[in-house]
């Protein structure tokens, strides 16, 4: 009954979303506040209904109710509880329900916290959200219903893809979706504003917190996904330019651009057309990502199930929303007046620079992702666009942008002073060059480019610190005063600086691990040792073990420093019994920001070593690698701090004033 109630709730959610799609729009057109207000309970109800539905599905998973086809196909009674739960979204149907849950979650947030928005804007935003919700609810109910039942029910499920049986999976998709889907709000704001014909500085202020929230979640989600791939896939890499990764990275790049251009629009009412276009494009890229992943166009770990009708359906949604939005944009863009003027060298100019490079980078990734697909569908020729393409194109685009980042916040609005900004950055630049030289000195034989990369990373970090120091007047006034000024800085300034600092930390990690990583592949017999990053790694032998739903061969290693044992490491090859699928569990030892990474290959079965427990071992020494993810955490923290800025909630006519206005006639 619970399962069926879940099914029913999902359908009622569709009915509610349809009401929310229509009534508030009519209300906004006619200026009927009552009809506009329908959006509010509708959004909350949709969220609760989808939540109920998601809960019912989770209940079916937890109790291993194999009369639900989705559970039968993706779960197993022997699976640990946490993976039974994460299994809910570890498959196509369930993950689409999660997608919708997050969509309606954002609608409910707007309904609850959108008190500062004008009534028509809020009604239209919620209606546009409901259009998206309805489309995806139709998609789920018509092509991917997770509540389809089987009678009689099988006695055992067919297990979850073991690669997806990982704690990373439990957190990664929800976070990623929060970001991905969060940009739907920006999209809805853009469409609502276009329908209203009002796009001004206030609109930018209202849309910014939502952009920030989505951006923060997406940053955390991508980072988590990258770390998950790093330690779960056992390939030793942290970013593969895999189409699915790109699908999440493109909205991030566009969203970052949007975040910056909305800033210009809020301050100066410039870049209006551009900001609206970006808001549309960012979510379009999210939709495109959903299409690529869900349609089965791509074959990868993420494509749980492919079915042509699903692909066509999502393509239809894609065309409808992106096409519709761009048409509306084309219709209205001409009527938008351009805003404040500015010199090329100014804060606005810097942000335009940022936007140009970020969108170029997005386009680069888009081409690299779509071109092979197009080519294959048109000519049948299979090519793979791998890291070489992206390293050659994406890298050079990002480089000038990264160099320019510290300058941006130091430039004044309207008319900036580049030389002045450069002078203020002398110290940061000097320190970073020193750091680069130090890298050159300590890592003998390090390529000059790597040293420059390190310097660049430090430049970003010191640049961000310089910005904060200048704003709090450090060195010009007493420490106490500058502390007071620092504490009084707007949160968004603090958050921005922190995000830039995090970017620098990530760059440091990327440069460090790319330039100084060592990798060796060798056959090791028990007792044999190898050197990596100043540590001695001893292979102690293999041992079979049994987990709840897998069997594994664990390779034991001991890490030694100067002959003294420091730590033990285990790396394993697992076989998940129900699906007969092997996976590799990497052994990772973290030392400071560096990591030693051990992954097992196949046992040696030919030659004299056969049967002696000899196995192929891949050993990586990855200096500074964790900085990559620490950096993203700092960036996300910057987003959260910025989000706590009081000013982002401004806009609601204060209660007292409204109350007075209502009372006056009575007197």
């Amino acid at each position, binding site marked *: 009954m619970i399962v*069926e109630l879940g099914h029913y709730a999902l359908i009622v959610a569709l009915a509610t979303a349809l009401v929310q799609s229509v009534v508030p729009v009519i209300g906004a057109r006619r200026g009927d506040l009552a*009809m506009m207000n329908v959006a509010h309970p509708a959004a909350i109800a949709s969220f609760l*209904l989808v939540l109920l539905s998601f809960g019912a599905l989770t209940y079916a998973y937890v109790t291993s109710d194999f*009369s639900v086809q989705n559970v039968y196909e993706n779960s197993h*009674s022997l699976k640990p509880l946490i993976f039974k739960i994460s299994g809910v979204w570890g498959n196509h149907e369930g993950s689409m329900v999660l997608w919708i849950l997050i969509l309606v979650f954002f609608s409910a947030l707007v309904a609850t916290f959108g008190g500062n928005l004008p009534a028509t804007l809020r009604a239209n935003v919620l209606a546009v959200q409901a259009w998206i919700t309805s489309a995806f609810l139709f998609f789920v109910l018509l092509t991917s219903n997770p509540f389809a039942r089987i009678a009689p029910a099988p006695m055992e499920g067919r297990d979850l893809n073991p690669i997806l049986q990982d704690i990373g999976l439990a957190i990664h998709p929800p976070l990623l979706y929060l970001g991905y889907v969060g940009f739907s709000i920006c999209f809805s704001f853009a469409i609502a504003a276009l329908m209203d014909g009002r796009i001004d500085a206030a609109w930018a202020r209202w849309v910014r917190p939502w952009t920030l929230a989505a951006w923060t979640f997406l940053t955390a989600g991508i980072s988590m996904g990258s770390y998950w791939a790093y330690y779960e896939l056992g390939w030793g890499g942290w970013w593969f330019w895999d189409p699915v990764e790109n699908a999440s990275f493109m909205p991030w790049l566009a969203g970052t651009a949007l975040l910056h251009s909305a800033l210009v629009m809020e301050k100066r009412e410039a870049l209006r057309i551009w900001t609206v276009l970006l808001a549309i494009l960012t979510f379009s890229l999210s939709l495109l990502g959903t299409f690529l992943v869900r349609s089965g166009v791509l074959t990868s770990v993420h494509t749980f199930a492919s079915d042509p009708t699903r692909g066509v359906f999502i393509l239809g949604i894609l065309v409808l929303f992106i096409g519709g939005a761009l048409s509306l944009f084309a219709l209205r863009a001409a009527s938008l007046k351009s805003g404040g003027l500015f010199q090329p060298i100014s804060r606005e100019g810097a942000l335009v620079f940022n936007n140009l490079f970020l969108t170029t980078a997005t386009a680069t990734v888009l081409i690299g992702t779509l071109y092979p697909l197009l080519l294959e569908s048109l000519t049948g020729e299979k090519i793979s666009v791998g890291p070489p393409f992206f390293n050659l194109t994406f890298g050079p685009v990002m480089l000038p942008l990264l160099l320019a980042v510290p300058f941006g916040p130091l430039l004044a609005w309207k008319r900036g002073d580049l030389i002045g900004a450069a002078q203020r950055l002398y110290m940061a630049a000097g320190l970073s060059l020193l750091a680069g030289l130090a890298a050159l000195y300590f890592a003998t034989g390090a390529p000059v480019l790597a040293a420059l990369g390190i310097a660049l990373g430090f430049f970003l970090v010191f640049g961000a610190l310089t910005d904060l120091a200048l704003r709090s007047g450090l060195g010009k006034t007493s420490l106490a005063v500058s502390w007071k000024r620092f504490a009084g800085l707007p949160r968004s300034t603090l958050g921005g600086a922190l995000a830039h600092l995090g970017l620098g930390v990530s760059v440091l990690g990327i440069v460090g691990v790319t330039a100084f990583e060592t990798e060796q592949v060798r056959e090791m017999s028990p007792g044999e040792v190898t050197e990596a990053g100043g540590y001695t790694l001893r292979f102690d032998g293999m041992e079979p073990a049994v987990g709840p739903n897998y069997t594994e061969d664990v390779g034991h290693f001991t890490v030694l420093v100067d002959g003294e044992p420091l730590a033990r490491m285990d790396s394993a090859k697992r076989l998940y019994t129900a699906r007969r699928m092997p996976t590799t569990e990497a052994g990772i030892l973290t030392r400071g920001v560096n990591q030693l990474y051990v992954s097992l290959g196949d046992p040696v079965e030919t030659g004299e070593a056969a049967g002696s427990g000899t196995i192929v071992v891949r050993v990586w020494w990855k200096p500074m690698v964790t900085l990559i993810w620490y950096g993203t955490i700092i960036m996300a923290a910057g987003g959260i701090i910025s989000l706590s800025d009081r000013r982002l909630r401004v806009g609601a006519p204060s209660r007292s004033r409204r109350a007075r206005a*209502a009372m006056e006639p009575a007197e």
Partner: protein
Amino acid sequence: MMFWVLAAILTAVVTIALLLPLARRVPVVAGGDHDVEVYSDQLSEVDRDSNAGLIDEAEAEYARAEIARRLLRADRRSDAGIEERSGRMRRVAQVGVIVAVPAIAMGAYLTAGSPGLPDQPLASRAAPPSERSGPEMLIAQAEAHLADNPDDGRGWDVLAPIYLRMGRFDDAEMAYANAMRILGPSAERHSGYGETLVAAAGGVISEEARIAFQSARELEPDEPKAAFYLAMALVQEGRNERALQAFEDLAETSPPDAPWMEVVDAQIATLDRERSATGSLTLAPLELPNLAGSQEPSAPSGSSAPSDEAAAIQSMPESERREMIVGMVESLDARLRENPDNADGWMRLMRSYSVLGRDDAANDALTRALEAFPRDSEQGAALLALASELGIDAPAEEAQ
């Protein structure tokens, strides 16, 4: 019942929640106020920045002027505030909500849902009621047993042909390999292993499979399954003369009522006609032995037939495959008309029609079957049970 009560409550609560705003008389709020708030906040921000020395006075003046312009514009707009309205549109919306929400919800749910089906958490199903204990259940138990005792060769031996018949070829391959590793090779295991490879390859007899069959024959020269596949291998190689010879040898050594004889005879007939070598392969009458056989094959090798045919059928084009299946089903139908005293045959026929989507024909078959086997007989009950499982409506009682 409980479900419908809860569903009704859910629907009612949602509908009322959507109706509430439409019923309320709402206060008037001027539309421009929101922007005014934002812009005045921007003004105070400029003041803060200039007091803190972050921007100089001239810049601050510029910014103030700019924001003031926006403020003016917003003020002008706020005159066109939202007025309270009531009227027809609101009434239409109310009626729309009242009608649409329950109608959409019920309509869609009744087509897609399974309202009668209870939850079936595994824990509460641990001891399945005496109704059929189901092959899945047995397999699951065997799998659980083997997960704990992976060295139980007999378990693998039992499971291997079952996997094969279910089309789980990878599992079958593994099970045969395990059985051979633990219990040692036997003709049966070798030929079963070979058959798995053939089935997994869609009917093609690979070199590895051929070696397996040959090993089987070395252990037991009379093993009919191995003999059959080795002959088929010859057909696939285009060596029709030798293939014909091999089939004829097999026919001689087999009892005349062996379940594979029909296939063998057909192959002999085809080869006899000296058809082109490649064309002959797909002409094997694939599902016939299974449909025609009135009893489960008793010889252990008899289980070979279905999966092999399935593989061969799978390698055929869709239209041809369907045509062949329809032909076979119709011949079964005709035979049952002549000799209706075959409960298994009726069940197969009902199942086939149901798979083919010909529900009326399945219905008809059930009616005729019930004429041969009364409802209260054991077979009659089994027929009715199958019918309900397949979703075939039983004929009204007076048919008896």
